[in-house]
């Protein structure tokens, strides 16, 4: 599903965010990406939906080399990938409902379909009651959940979540992580960058640890073969 081949990323001022990262994620796999602040987690996730291109090496998504994708195809790639951004990236002049609906609108969905699925997604993250509010009227956690609702609303094949519970209380955070885990059981590939050690420990899935742009650990924790865990469903690409 996703493959990084010897990927490096050098930003301006000669900042090396990733250095020779090799890694593969199979369909339906659930992977945590952990590591200290500035280790390159977000950079890695941003490459999956082609917000960044590698300075060296290649990134493949569903077998396609992203660096060689035509500009016109990028939106279609992105529609297949739901993203929870670390900084939420909500459209400031649209309401919660419109923000979530937007991900469906761009795909050209019919309006009753948009309405139904958006309502469902907001229900899931517990924001039905706040759907008319604008982002600046939401609490931090509410914004984060809106971003999550938008990421899952069009049932993407891949879900990328960058620190999706940083602004949530442990209980809500665990619930939503459980939900992401569940959708990976239904075949969605899920990549989660997180600092929440308690959640990582609890889910016992594959954990990739980045430090200074390098993968220093790539563990299949206990439970990998457990019957109810999505981690078990990972197939290699």
């Amino acid at each position: 599903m996703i493959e990084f081949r010897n990927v490096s990323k050098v930003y301006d001022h000669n900042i090396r965010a990733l250095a020779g990262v090799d890694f593969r994620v199979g369909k339906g796999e659930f992977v945590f990406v952990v590591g200290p602040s500035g280790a390159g987690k977000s950079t890695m996730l941003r490459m999956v939906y082609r917000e960044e291109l590698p300075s060296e090496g290649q990134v493949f998504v569903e077998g396609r080399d992203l660096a060689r994708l035509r500009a016109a195809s990028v939106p279609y790639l992105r529609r297949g990938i739901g993203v929870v951004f670390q900084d939420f990236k909500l459209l400031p002049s649209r309401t919660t409902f419109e923000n979530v609906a937007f991900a469906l609108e761009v795909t050209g969905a019919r309006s009753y379909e948009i309405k139904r699925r958006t309502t469902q997604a907001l229900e899931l993250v517990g924001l039905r009651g706040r759907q008319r509010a604008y982002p600046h009227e939401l609490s931090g956690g509410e914004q984060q959940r809106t971003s999550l609702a938008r990421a899952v609303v069009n049932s993407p094949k891949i879900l990328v979540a960058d620190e999706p519970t940083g602004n949530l209380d442990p209980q809500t955070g665990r619930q939503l992580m459980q939900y992401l885990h569940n959708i990976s059981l239904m075949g969605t590939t899920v990549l989660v960058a997180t600092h929440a050690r308690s959640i990582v420990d609890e889910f016992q899935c594959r954990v990739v640890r980045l430090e200074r742009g390098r993968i220093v650990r790539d563990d299949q924790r206990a439970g990998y073969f457990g019957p109810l865990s999505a981690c078990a469903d990972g197939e290699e690409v």
Partner: protein
Amino acid sequence: MSLFGYCLREARKSIGRNPFLSIATVFTAAIALLVLATFLLGAANLQNLAEFVERQVNVAIFLRDGVAPADRDSLKANVAGIAGVEEITFVSRETALQRLRDKFGENAALLDGIDEFNPLRDSLEVRVGSAAAVDLVAEAVKASPLVDEISYGKELVARLVSVTRALRLGILGLAGLLGLATLFLIQNSIRLSVFARREEISIMRLVGATDSVIRWPLVFEGIVLAAGGALVATLAVGVVYQWLWQAMGRNLAFLPVLPLAAVLGRVGGVVVLTGVVIGAAGALLAMRRWLRV
């Protein structure tokens, strides 16, 4: 969901969401186009005035003594056929003397003694539509054996021709410059408004919006705002012009000022069209800058 319907809805919503930006853009467009419209109205009137002045130019063809009426009529017909000639009248030497007498007014008594040996000549008076036609007439009759002399205030005509040519050139040049300035102002304003939303645009791209889903609503919005500005400008200029026209009619009736109806259609059309084209171009140009994958 059709793209057009989508654009329409999005543009409407977006204008509602950013009323400040929208109003600022409409007003910038309106003012820029107001200047253009005022200028176009002025230019139309100057053009009209130039034509009016040119129509005052006459050519007098003095005939030799004893030209037969038949010859004279055929010459008259020839000259009447020249492009730009509007009217041709025969003035006999008697009429000419009477005119001179009228001109003298109170001193007409001076002419009392000369009735029997009238030194004046028969002439054809030609009224032409433009100063340029004067040369044509002169050229055509100069060689004729019937013609004694041609008089047309050479210098005046030369001046008029060069003044009106300069005027036309100047108007064209200024119109071009003002058009460019208008384009730049409106485009700038739309670019600023797109600039203020660059974050939004980049977010849209990140959640899978194609270029056209982002571009066309913005272009549409640019057109709507610029066209709105154009309508405001046309309306404002129309009202002021009508008012001025009436005031001028009262005080300066001798100056030929075009009525509103004769110019507003053309000027309004140009202004709205300019607005629409510039609105679209401005939005497209603005996005070339901020739309990057």
